């Protein structure tokens, strides 16, 4: 059974049809990339899945149940978690308070503590700065914090919006290593990326979004060798 099933999703805002009826399926345990040019509707798609945009049409099923118009804060409890574009760090909260916000819906104090240690083990930099205001972190550290915070909510389906945006190449590698590791631990991931090559190299399958429509979807390896994809997104 598909963990996520999207049928004919349409989203419009400000009179613009940003997403014009797309189908997507994600099986449990998959790492799926959604690639496309700037303004193709990638972020809008993720935002609609997380309940931040109201779909104008279509359906979204998650774990077999319709979540089409559910409010964001209820989706988190079901394990559907978005790491937003631009990271969405609470800059005036400390690093540790940010992580605790990730566990907002949980009340298992012991589990939260253990997960906090796990996040710190994964990102030692965050532990070094745990009582610092998160706004003082570098861009890469903020991305680590955003991912760590999402992990604190024990996601089943993690939606990542442009995790490499604005980061130095070394940090991009580190972030993608982390994404692979999280996927290997069994978290299903839908990854939106401008860096199509890296995204496809990391994923099992990929979707190509063009002006609000899915124009291609295939195994990631097949897309990497697809002439059209190579030309349009891999700069070859």
């Amino acid at each position, binding site marked *: 059974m598909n963990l996520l099933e999207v049928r004919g999703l349409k989203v419009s805002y400000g009179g613009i049809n940003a997403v014009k009826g797309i189908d997507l399926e994600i099986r449990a345990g998959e790492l799926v990339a959604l690639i496309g040019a700037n303004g193709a509707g990638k972020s809008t798609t993720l935002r609609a899945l997380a309940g931040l945009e109201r779909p104008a049409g279509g359906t979204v099923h998650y774990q077999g149940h319709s979540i089409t118009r559910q*409010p964001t804060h209820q989706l*988190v409890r079901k394990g559907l*978690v978005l790491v937003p574009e631009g990271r*969405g760090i609470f800059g005036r909260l400390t690093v540790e*308070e940010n992580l605790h*916000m*990730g566990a*907002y*819906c949980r009340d298992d104090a012991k589990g939260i503590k253990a997960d906090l240690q796990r996040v710190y083990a994964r990102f030692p930099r965050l532990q070094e700065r745990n009582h610092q205001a998160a706004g003082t972190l570098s861009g890469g550290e903020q991305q680590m914090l955003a991912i760590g*915070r999402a992990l604190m909510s024990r996601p089943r389906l993690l939606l990542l919006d442009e995790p490499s945006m604005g980061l130095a190449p070394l940090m991009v590698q580190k972030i993608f290593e982390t994404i692979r590791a999280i996927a290997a631990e069994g978290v299903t991931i839908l990854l939106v990326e401008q860096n199509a090559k890296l995204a496809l190299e990391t994923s099992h399958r990929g979707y190509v979004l063009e002006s609000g429509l899915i124009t291609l979807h295939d195994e990631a390896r097949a897309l990497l060798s697809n002439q059209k994809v190579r030309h349009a997104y891999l700069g070859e």
Partner: protein
Amino acid sequence: MDIFLQQIINGLVLGSIYALVALGYTMVYGILGLINFAHGEVVMIGAMVALAAIHALTGTALPGPVIVLMGLLIAIPACMLLGYGIERVAYRPLRHAPRLAPLITAIGVSIVLQNLAMIVWGRQYIAFPPLLPNDAYVIAGASITLLQIFIFLLATAIMVGLIFLVKRTRLGRAMRATAQNPEVAGLMGVNVNTVISATFIIGSALAAVAGLMVGAYYGLAHYYMGFLLGLKAFSAAVLGGIGNLGGAMLGGLLLGVIESLGAGYIGPLTGGVLGSHYQDVFAFFVLILVLVFRPSGLLGERTAERA
């Protein structure tokens, strides 16, 4: 002889009441970016409800302080309900409207509440019955009453409690997160509407306490009392840096002291031309100075930091 210490004491007591009211303004502003101009009226309703309950109980065998306490315990939930209702009815439907719309609505709510109070309780001043002991102590030539001590200690205790709530509890963390970025707070599973309601409810509870304090301190209440008090507390919040809790407390205390000192010295300084009834001028004079020279307030540092 020395009125200085006396005015400082009076100012701190008055200022601690301003601070309680200013917190209500600043908390709502911090989360919604909205100046809740109806907040002063919530204070007034708190005073009126408390007084009504106190009048109903006066003459029973209960000791005076117990009657006052019961008035407070009735006024607090009444104001909480009122604050919740104001947000639901007047502000929530306008959440995504241009900023001017809720501002005008706030003024509208304020007028409605004033008139409602006038219909229910009349236009006359309502006296606060002498239920509390009015023992006074003399310290270095200045006198301080038991009531003043009690007001100051209670206000301080409430502020300490509020800081604990905001800094240390799950709700407080959710409030701070929502204030910074409501959308991302929602992504953490925070029901933003619940947090906003909680903010109004907490602010209104503080307003109820402040309302009763004002009534007891001045010995009377009036349907129009919320207007000036609200404006002064708003000035205090701006003075401290609106949106900043510590700022509201500091601004409240400072404004109280400035006002008291001003009232005490304006007569001698102007050779008797202006009397202490000009004391209300100081709050707004301070407001103007702050807006001109430091619009972000004493502790305000609201700079864009959203990534």
